[in-house]
């Protein structure tokens, strides 16, 4: 495998053939914000929060291969504004009530809002959709009010659990994540599935019952530091 370098915001980043911009950036300790991409899952390029600019075009950094000499823009005010707008629209598209959500503090959508300096979501109208809660399964509940359609559970269930419990239905703004069955109890979902594990769902949609507030609000994952700080600390070594 041959190596080469490209730049992100003017800093040299080493890469291998076939690596995406984000994979190379992660290894070099440069954090590119992302929601639908997750360690160990195949890349989707759906949420566009990882949008970067290079050669006058916008790419999703999680799917775009790095190429020698590519000059990538990542942390610019313009790109972060685009990212903030995307995150803001996600807040307005579903029912994201942080104070009542058991994922608050562990939620990547909320953490991304913090990182991108979104203090109050007000620019767009709230769609306030009416969405169902599926608590049929004895160990798992789904609160689809909080789903951001990132598809991480779909990929985890298909590729890692080899089950295909989740899938997309509908098109455009009506595209939703649905379960393959009348409800979750009528699928072969188990709480031990990777798709159900606590870090696959970035928000509070997939809920494992009876563990909700084991860690109190204020002492959770993103109360310890901004999202992406683990990756950025890699770059400090």
């Amino acid at each position, binding site marked *: 495998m041959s190596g080469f370098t490209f730049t992100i915001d003017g800093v040299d980043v080493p890469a291998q053939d076939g690596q995406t911009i984000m994979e190379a950036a992660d290894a070099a300790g440069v954090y590119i914000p992302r929601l639908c991409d997750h360690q160990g899952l195949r890349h989707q390029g759906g949420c566009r929060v990882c949008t970067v600019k290079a050669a006058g075009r916008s790419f999703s950094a999680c799917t775009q291969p790095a190429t020698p000499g590519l000059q990538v823009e990542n942390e610019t005010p313009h790109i972060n504004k685009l990212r903030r707008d995307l995150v803001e629209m996600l807040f307005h598209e579903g*029912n994201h*009530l*942080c*104070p*009542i*959500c058991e994922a*608050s*503090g562990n939620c990547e959508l*909320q953490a991304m*809002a*913090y*990182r991108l*300096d979104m*203090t*109050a*979501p*007000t620019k767009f109208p*709230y769609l*306030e*959709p*009416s*969405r169902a809660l599926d608590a049929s399964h004895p160990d798992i509940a789904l609160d689809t*009010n909080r789903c951001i359609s990132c598809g991480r559970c779909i990929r985890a269930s298909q590729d890692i659990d080899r089950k295909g419990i989740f899938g997309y239905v509908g098109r455009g703004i009506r595209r939703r994540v649905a379960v393959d069955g009348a409800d979750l109890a009528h699928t072969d979902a188990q709480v031990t599935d990777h798709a159900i594990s606590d870090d696959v769902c970035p928000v509070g949609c997939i809920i494992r019952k009876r563990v909700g507030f084991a860690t109190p*609000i*204020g002492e959770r994952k993103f*109360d310890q530091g*901004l999202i992406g700080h683990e990756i950025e600390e890699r770059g400090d070594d």
Partner: protein
Amino acid sequence: MTEEPRKVRIATASLAGCFGCHMAILDIDERLIELMKLVEIDRSPLTDIKRFHGRCDIGIIEGGCCNEENVEVLRDFRRHCDVLVAIGQCAIMGGLPAMRNAIMHSDEPLRECLEEAYISGRYIRNTTHDIPNDPALPLLLDKVYPVSEVVEVDYQIPGCAPTGDVIFETLTRLLAGRLPGFEREHIKFD
């Protein structure tokens, strides 16, 4: 003898909120003593004054609008305050009361909500089987509105509730004449 500088006048109100943000104002703790040398509190639940005595410099709003009285109070605040600050998630985006908005998709949404709350809910013990309808009760709105959808808001401070530190910082910076925003680590939605 030189005249003492005029104190900054502050008014506060809790609309469709839980008073948690007002509790958080008290979390300013002993710094309140220094603060009160610079400000005086006009209309507020803290002073129990119900009407404005004059124009205020800063108005602080907790909670969104769930009934017509909330709207009335909020408009009164906008008329009387130079700078209007919405504090807490309820004021900013409706918060917990806005949970009723998501069920507002049936033909008679408000009736459905009230019937479940007062009549058909599984754990309700309501001997009269009535939905409260005393004329003294303010009329409910069709849904819960964030403050910024009803009046122009100058600053929105997130949190449920914002910490005493964030509220103190907001006030001291406003008194100094500028509120450039907060360190990212201090902003929380919960």
